[in-house]
């Protein structure tokens, strides 16, 4: 079974014409012996792109004034232009670069704050988040909601999930319920995940955006932190007011750079949260200078695109490589452990949620974290865990048809992964299972 799984991987690489030695050539800075299966958290930067970044840094340290006045602006525009093209933005003016998706949340949140403080919005107006919204996003919108008197609505997306329409149905129910509870309440902003972080599911976000609009939601903000480089991002097609994604997660940009896209009507009212000399000159100007900073990661975007083209033949091929490979690995692991995956293939991008053997008896988020630490320290495997809460267990069992899966590993595939990484994970979990059952 392992051999055939290995063959599937090899064939996937061959079919998409991706060399099998990218790891050795471009990722030899990775810690040897570590099965690096958590690409989603912090991404990875190939040597070629690091080198490009170093060249920009070198220019800066050599003569910073020359850099600022004669080199940086063109470089940043080239980065934004490349992204605008890749995400089908209508105009590069609508695309700005930020440190990370976390910054985008604070930026959108601050615009909401002014709406409340300046009387455009009123106490009781609502902000909608998904139940699986990223922790920092939840922290951000909870914080401002509490301070300005906004209500928070949590829309439920089930996990495990059986299909996109399963997810969409729950989302629609949440919107309907929210309206029922408070018929006149205005939802000023809905924050939707393109790919939820934990647990990871690729959501039918285009339909969710439309649904929001049909319920009178004024603005929709799509958190696509994981999306760029793992699924197609077509901002015109999605039609959200705001869209953000990290480029250092799945696009091989150096740490850190994210893009933020917004509809033209917002360009005058949004401001970068950190106010600098460029404040008031338009969002693009504000984002292009937030005080003296190291902008080299932002400037290395074209080098990242070159890497994708050179090694994978393009973003589309890269996405398919990772999608097909991670699905194969997810199925194989689930089979090895006698468990199941938490989402169907059409809701998987480059990360798959693989159920852990129930005998491991993970009963809390902290126990999941302990398992993760143990895997890192004892088995040199890096993979994050999701814990299924007790109230969700019943429905979880119904969907997976395997009772008692209380925790899932979020397993990723990126161009540098090999079969041995997944074997290392399988064996580690099997060892722990062995220790449990031998008690």
């Amino acid at each position, binding site marked *: 079974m392992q051999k055939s799984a290995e063959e599937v991987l090899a064939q996937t690489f061959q079919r998409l014409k991706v060399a099998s030695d990218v790891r050795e050539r471009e990722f030899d800075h990775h810690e040897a012996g570590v099965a690096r299966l958590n690409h989603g958290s912090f991404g990875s930067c190939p040597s070629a792109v690091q080198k490009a970044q170093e060249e920009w840094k070198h220019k800066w340290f050599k003569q910073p004034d*020359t850099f600022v*006045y004669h080199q940086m602006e063109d470089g940043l525009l080239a980065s934004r232009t490349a992204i605008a093209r890749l995400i089908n933005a209508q105009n590069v003016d609508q695309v700005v670069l930020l440190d990370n998706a976390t*910054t985008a949340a604070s930026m959108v949140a601050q615009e909401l704050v002014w709406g409340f403080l300046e009387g455009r919005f009123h106490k009781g107006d609502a902000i909608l988040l998904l139940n699986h919204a990223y922790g920092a996003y939840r922290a951000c919108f909870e914080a401002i909601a509490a301070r300005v008197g906004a209500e928070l609505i949590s829309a439920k997306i089930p996990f495990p999930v059986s299909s996109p329409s399963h997810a969409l149905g729950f989302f629609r129910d949440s919107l309907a319920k929210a309206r029922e509870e408070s018929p006149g309440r205005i939802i000023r902003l809905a924050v939707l995940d393109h790919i939820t972080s934990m647990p990871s599911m690729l959501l039918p976000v285009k339909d969710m955006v439309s649904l929001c609009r049909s319920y009178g939601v004024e603005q929709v903000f799509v958190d696509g932190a994981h999306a760029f480089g793992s699924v197609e991002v077509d901002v015109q097609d999605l039609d959200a007011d705001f869209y953000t994604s990290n480029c250092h997660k799945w696009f091989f940009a150096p740490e850190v750079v994210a893009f933020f896209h917004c509809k033209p009507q917002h360009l005058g009212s949004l401001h970068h949260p*950190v106010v600098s000399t460029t404040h008031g000159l338009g969002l693009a100007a504000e984002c292009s200078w937030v005080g003296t900073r190291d902008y080299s*990661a932002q400037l290395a975007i074209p080098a990242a695109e070159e890497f994708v083209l050179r090694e994978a033949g393009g973003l589309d091929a890269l996405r398919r490589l990772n999608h097909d490979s991670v699905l194969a690995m997810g199925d194989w692991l689930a089979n090895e452990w006698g468990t199941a995956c938490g989402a169907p293939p059409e809701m998987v991008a480059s990360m798959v949620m693989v159920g852990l053997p129930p005998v491991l008896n993970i009963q809390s988020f902290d126990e999941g974290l302990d398992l993760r630490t143990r895997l*890192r320290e004892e088995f040199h495997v*890096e993979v994050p865990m999701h814990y299924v809460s007790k109230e969700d267990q019943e429905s979880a069992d119904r969907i997976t048809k395997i009772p008692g899966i209380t925790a899932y590993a979020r397993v990723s595939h990126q161009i540098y992964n090999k079969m041995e990484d997944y074997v290392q994970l399988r064996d580690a979990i099997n060892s722990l299972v062995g220790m449990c059952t031998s008690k």
Partner: protein
Amino acid sequence: MEHEAAMRERDLALAMHETFMASGSEDGLSPRLQQQQSSEMIYSPRGATRLWGEQRSMVAARELNEAFLRTLRKTEFGHHERGAARLNHGSFGSCPKSVLAAQAEFAQTWLKQPDAFYFGGVEAALLQARRAVAEHVNCPVHELVLIDNATTSATIVAMDVMWALAEGRYAKGDTILMLNFAYKAVSNAFHAYGVRAGAQLLIVEIPFPITSASEALATLEEALKKAKAEDRVIRLAVLDHIVSMPSIILPVKEMVALCRSYGIEQVFVDGAQAIGQVEVNVQDMDADYYTSNLNKWLFAPTTASLFHCKAKHLSRLHHPIISHNYGKGLVAECNWVGTRDYSALLAVPACFQFMNSVPGGLKAIRAYNHDRVVAMGKMLADAWGTHCGVPADMMGSMVTVGLPPALQISSANEVHDLRTCLRQESSIEIHGFVPPKREVSQAVTAYLRISHQLYNTYDDYLRLRDAINTLVAKATKDRK
């Protein structure tokens, strides 16, 4: 007259020559300095660290002299553009190779296995960096955070004002006091978050040229008296420790005390330029908030900044970027602002190692830079027939020198064009400005801000002198 001027120039040149490079001997050292050098060890980054530990007294006995600096320029600042006269250290600073190497090590640790670093070491490494800085500026480490830049610090304080107005702690119309020379980003921050939320601004006009620290203090007192008479409620005073442009060291400790004596609740000192130019003792200064960029004069990589905040404010203030640690106090919030490259912050202890490897340490560096820039300011002012806008005791490592009126520069755009011209045609980097207000009688309409840092040579300033003189000659000729 000509003879006298020539004599003066010769004397000055001789004095400079003695200071910068001794005459007579083969390798450019005076006999006295030669003797000293024979007992010195050749400086190298790793060697310096070992040296400091093992040969403390020997290092301490060495002088910060031209021989040492000549080596330093090669080993630590060899990445600077060859042939460029780098006289605008104040804008973007500079980072020695040994500190860049320390930064690269942290960056590689992250890239190697980010999760392990995130869960196992990043916060501790950041604490070490914070400790080094807190010790240096004399505050408890729990009152000190490291962030991107002073611009971010200003936003932190300004957002607190916004919430105070929004939540009724301040009333609409309450005042924020700022100086006319506040850095633009700082002024923007208090407009964007303060004025927009309903605050008023009170701008105190520090004069320039200025003759003494007491002149600055008197100006502030006058403004405070007037505000008191008008029953203005000043909630926050934003003061500059060292004005960026023009460059002026203000008597900020006395200014803080003055503000408090007039009942101003909170004082924020923008010391962006300060650390590494002057001594910074936050406890002594007693401001509520103090910020300074470490990548300007403390040799940190791009970028790292300190923000000191009195304990009583730590739970109320927030980093503008909300992440997982929101609500756990400012320190926790600043420890993690989302996935970032924290290597510049983590490398800060290496700055102290670098400075300790220079004979006399930071104290000697500050004194050396100050003495040199004062001398160079005088040299240029004499050469151009202008003046320096502040007395020597209000200068740090930067001096603002009047440009010859013959250049007829009277707008920011013209200064910008001059900078570009000097950069592209003469490889000279300087900064400059046009004072917004001046006496009608005053002939000098524009000033250059020049800096001195360890890597500078006398030649840098001579080139600037000559480049400006050439432009003056050309302008004079064109006008005929």
